[in-house]
């Protein structure tokens, strides 16, 4: 489902030096597979996810999703593929503050297969937010905001959900519940899950966990 080959990304530091952040010779994730990726802060995990999502352009290498090489696509087609095949849960959730919960979920759909408000509603109800559909993010608790973000990530029936430290802003109990919810929701929707975290408690819940440092040749 996801195949990464010889993926490289460098940035230019403020003093003009080129710094390599990601150099992944090979990485694969099967359909519906759930994997925890362990890595310290600053190790390039977010950059790796952004490269997979096509938010960042790689310097070289291939990112294939469902057999389509993302790195050779034009930007509009890459945007389209991201909207249709990928879900992204950000550490800070990145909800649109001016939009209600259901609008946040529906808006994600509009860039993909199309708005299905019934599905958006059903997803939010599944997340226990049936009575918060028309609340704005500022009117929701942190845990509720995260559940909206999960619903949004799953809205377009993605084949792969990328989660970047999704429980980083939650306390231990809520983090456990939340992670459970993300995993269940992905399973129910047949989506693979690639979750990066530096928390051993979070990663302990995964059957499969890999060290990012083991797949990325560039150290922190």
């Amino acid at each position, binding site marked *: 489902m996801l195949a990464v080959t010889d993926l490289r990304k460098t940035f230019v530091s403020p003093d003009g030096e080129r710094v390599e952040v990601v150099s992944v010779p090979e990485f694969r994730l099967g359909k519906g597979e759930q994997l925890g990726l362990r890595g310290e802060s600053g190790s390039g995990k977010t950059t790796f996810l952004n490269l997979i999502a096509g938010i960042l352009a790689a310097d070289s290498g291939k990112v294939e999703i469902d057999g389509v090489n993302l790195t050779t696509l034009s930007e509009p087609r890459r945007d389209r593929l991201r*909207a249709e095949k990928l879900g992204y849960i950000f550490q800070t959730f990145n909800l649109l503050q001016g939009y209600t919960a259901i*609008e946040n979920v529906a*808006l994600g759909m509009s*860039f993909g297969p199309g708005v299905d408000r019934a599905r958006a509603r059903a997803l939010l109800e599944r997340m226990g937010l049936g009575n918060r559909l028309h609340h704005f993010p500022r009117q929701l608790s942190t845990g509720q905001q995260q559940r909206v973000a999960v619903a949004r990530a799953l809205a377009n029936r993605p084949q792969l959900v990328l989660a970047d430290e999704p429980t980083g802003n939650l306390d231990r109990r809520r983090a456990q519940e939340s992670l459970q919810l993300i995993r269940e929701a992905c399973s129910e929707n047949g989506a693979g899950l690639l979750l990066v975290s530096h928390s051993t408690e979070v990663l302990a819940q995964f059957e499969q966990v890999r060290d990012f440092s083991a797949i990325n040749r560039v150290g922190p």
Partner: protein
Amino acid sequence: MTLPLIIYRSLRQHALSTVVTAGSIALASGLLMCVWTVKTQSETTFASTNMGFDAVLGARGSKLQLVLNAIFDLESSPGNLAQSDYLYIKNHPAVKTAIPIAVGDNLRGYRIVGTIPELFNVEYAPGKHFALVSGGKMFNPDAKEAVLGSFAAARLGLKVGDTFHPFHGLAFNPNEQHTDIYTVTAILEPSNTPVDRVVWIPIHGLQTMSGHSAQYATDVSAVLIQLRAPTAGLMLDIMYNRQGNRLTFAYPVSAIISDLFSRISWFDRVLALVAYLVALVAAGSVLASIYNSMSARRRDLAILRALGAKRRTIFGAVVAESACIGALGSLVGFAIYFTLLTVVAGIVRDQTGVVLAIWAFHPVLILCPVGMTVLCAVGGMVPAFKAYRTPVADTLAPAS
């Protein structure tokens, strides 16, 4: 759903700047429409206001001054004509009607014009004749009686049966009161012409008013003329203006007023320039307003991009938002336009008696809102380009 929702939410999120910017657009749009409408309507209305007369005969001088004085009751008279000149034109075979008028007095600033009752039989506009408010009667040409235009009567607070003393001169001076006493015999129905602002008395009364020189007791200030055929006007024009050197024959009245507007066309150009600048400033305010809010919007735009929104969608959303502000402002601009026009039309009526049609359609009422919307959309392209270039990954989250 997407684009309208994005625009709507963005406008709501930045409600204050939206309102302020739309307000400046509304002001610009309202001003633009008002300037154009007043300009074109006043030109059209003034040029078509001839009180049913084709020409004016008066003392040697400016044709424009003659027309303004005799038809619009503005300006001073360029001089007098002898009774014989009036009688000559009256009996000329090419002339259908000749109505003498005499000016020189006022009633608390409202012009008193001496004339003959036949003036009020003239068809002042197609199918329209002057009419007296019921209960009144036309003045007796030999009596000290007056008929008041509707506007003058209302402003002076006079009604049928009231009396007044005229004042000497065209400008009101309380020390210049004549001893004569006139009685109001009728008030005219509103005609929306300069006639409404005048106090009409018999010409003989004005000529022989106490204090006026007996030497000029039979002179008239001008003669309002209806011709039997337009070609007669050309003939009389040659006779009075080229062959003669004592009198001026102002013909045709509408062309002389149009000439006035063409002479002040430089003022139109200045107005147009100011209007264009106002529009540009308004579009600039949209640009500045959205551009300044771009840092606050960057995150939202990056999130939209991360969700799969294409760059051109983001670009289009910002441009459409600018256009919406322009359209919204233009819509409110109509309220400003009608308010301003009502005030201006009131002033014009107050000063000249000419009524501007507030509700009349003018192409500028479509062109201006459309133009402002397009201009704002163009102004929005600058911040839209900034939005287009928003780096998604850098904006969204710190790398880990």
